[in-house]
């Protein structure tokens, strides 16, 4: 049985092939708490998909809906190139994710569970598919579970885009002026949670809220998965207690101990400087630095790399991943990438480009239907702040000496615009 007092929790016994249902039940047990909803409320679990919204409040919102059918959707799309946590969960402990999804479905009265895995993530999809079949062979109880494989675009994992895909086969974000709004498939209300959130629910409903809160901070309890990449021997996924100082996380992952900067949250996230190394890795601990845990991504930028070049590469890719529905995003993000490329090259054009870039960030932010452009703006703004010394060098002296080094940030190859799949 699982040792309930130490880490790992979510990744317990996660070596080799995906854990089978029999083995999963032997390891984690089959008995759940009598009042799972209470346990979830007491646990104070925050969603692990990026927004960090309290899971219990979402469940309450859905419980209040009167409907003949409701659905539980598990978001394992993982569109962030630097994130591997959902992949890790699905290929190691898929049944833990499904346990949580079934528990959440029972709480809101949903009769169907839909797990969404990006089409190009074949290993995670097949592991999940196998787990679903295993469950349906062995038990007749519980909701109907199915697997869906939407296209692997960055914005396809955004909740309104995912629901739109399930409805109409187009992975495009929707305009939702009123929030929080209830997501619907056909007319049926939907609860949508990240795969790691579901896995946490699978543990909370077994071992209880007090056990869950024995790690983490009061405002941000539990443990969380971190995808660590950048200046490190190999990208890895680790489970850490929320509130662990960033310095300790880097040490545990054997990453560069004295980095130039860290990118937190993802490619719509926040750069922080070395002054944040002693900050606790939690939403409350990172607030003074304007950052959040986000989707649990940490990219380590070492001193001998040009952060502006990395910023340019990421923004160009993010511009390419725009759904091109809204003008400010479709035209603004490529324009920002062009400005950044001029800044990287340095000199007088770079100074003009910087002024233009700063004006553009103000005009683009908040003017898309989804938060994709806002994320890029945050990414660029904090890059310019945190990498100020390097920026100064580029503007007034010329390109820095580190431009020739192999880039570190994981950026997929740009596909032809015509061959981008949205359905």
């Amino acid at each position, binding site marked *: 049985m699982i040792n309930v007092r130490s880490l790992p929790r979510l990744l317990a016994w996660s070596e080799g092939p995906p854990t089978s249902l029999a083995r999963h039940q032997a390891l984690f047990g089959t008995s759940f708490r009598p009042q799972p909803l209470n346990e979830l409320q007491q646990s104070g679990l925050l969603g692990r998909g990026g927004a960090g919204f309290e899971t219990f409040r979402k469940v309450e919102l859905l419980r209040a809906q009167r409907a003949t059918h409701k659905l539980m959707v598990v978001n394992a799309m993982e569109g962030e190139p630097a994130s591997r946590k959902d992949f890790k969960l699905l290929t190691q402990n898929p049944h833990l994710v499904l346990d949580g999804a079934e528990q959440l479905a029972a709480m809101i009265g949903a009769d169907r569970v839909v797990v969404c895995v990006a089409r190009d993530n074949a290993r995670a999809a097949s592991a999940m598919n196998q787990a679903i079949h295993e469950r349906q062979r062995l038990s007749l109880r519980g909701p109907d579970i199915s697997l869906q494989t939407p296209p692997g675009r960055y914005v396809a994992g955004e909740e309104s885009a995912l629901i739109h895909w399930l409805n109409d086969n187009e992975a495009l974000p929707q305009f939702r002026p009123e929030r929080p709004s209830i997501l619907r498939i056909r007319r049926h209300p939907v609860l949508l949670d990240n795969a790691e959130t579901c896995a946490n629910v699978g543990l909370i409903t077994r071992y209880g809220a007090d056990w869950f809160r024995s790690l983490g901070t009061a405002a941000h309890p539990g443990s969380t998965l971190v995808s660590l990449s950048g200046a490190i021997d190999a990208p890895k996924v680790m489970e850490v207690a929320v509130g662990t100082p960033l310095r300790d996380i880097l040490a545990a992952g054997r990453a560069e101990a004295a980095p130039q900067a860290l990118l937190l949250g993802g490619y719509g996230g926040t750069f922080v400087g070395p002054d944040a190394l002693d900050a606790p890795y939690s939403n409350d601990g990172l607030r003074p630095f304007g950052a959040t845990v986000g989707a649990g991504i940490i990219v380590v930028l070492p001193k001998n790399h040009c952060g502006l070049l990395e910023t340019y590469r990421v923004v160009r890719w993010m511009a390419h991943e725009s759904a091109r529905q809204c*003008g400010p995003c479709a*035209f603004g993000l490529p324009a920002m990438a062009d400005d950044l490329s001029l800044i990287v090259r340095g000199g007088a054009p770079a100074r003009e480009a910087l002024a233009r870039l700063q004006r553009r960030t103000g005009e683009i932010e908040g003017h898309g*239907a989804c938060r994709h452009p806002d994320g890029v703006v945050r990414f660029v703004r904090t890059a310019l702040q945190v990498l100020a010394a390097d920026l100064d060098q580029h503007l007034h002296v010329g390109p820095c000496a580190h431009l020739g080094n192999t880039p570190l940030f994981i950026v997929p190859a740009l596909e032809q615009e015509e061959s981008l799949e949205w359905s």
Partner: protein
Amino acid sequence: MVLGRHGTFVLQVNPILCDGFGHCAELAPDLVRLDEWGYPIIETTPLSLQDKGALESAKYAERGCPRQALRIRRKLD
């Protein structure tokens, strides 16, 4: 006594529908300006419904949008 309804309004664009025709900036120049690609940047602070001039131009913009992408959102006291 002041006539009319008490409350505030904002002009809001659905950016997915908007194709950047730019009529709104001509019909409601006090509320809307255009970015460099011709898409509207709209005043976001709520204005009083008593402000007849602003409300009138917001209505022009709402009706004059060829994509019907604009909506006036009223919040009554």
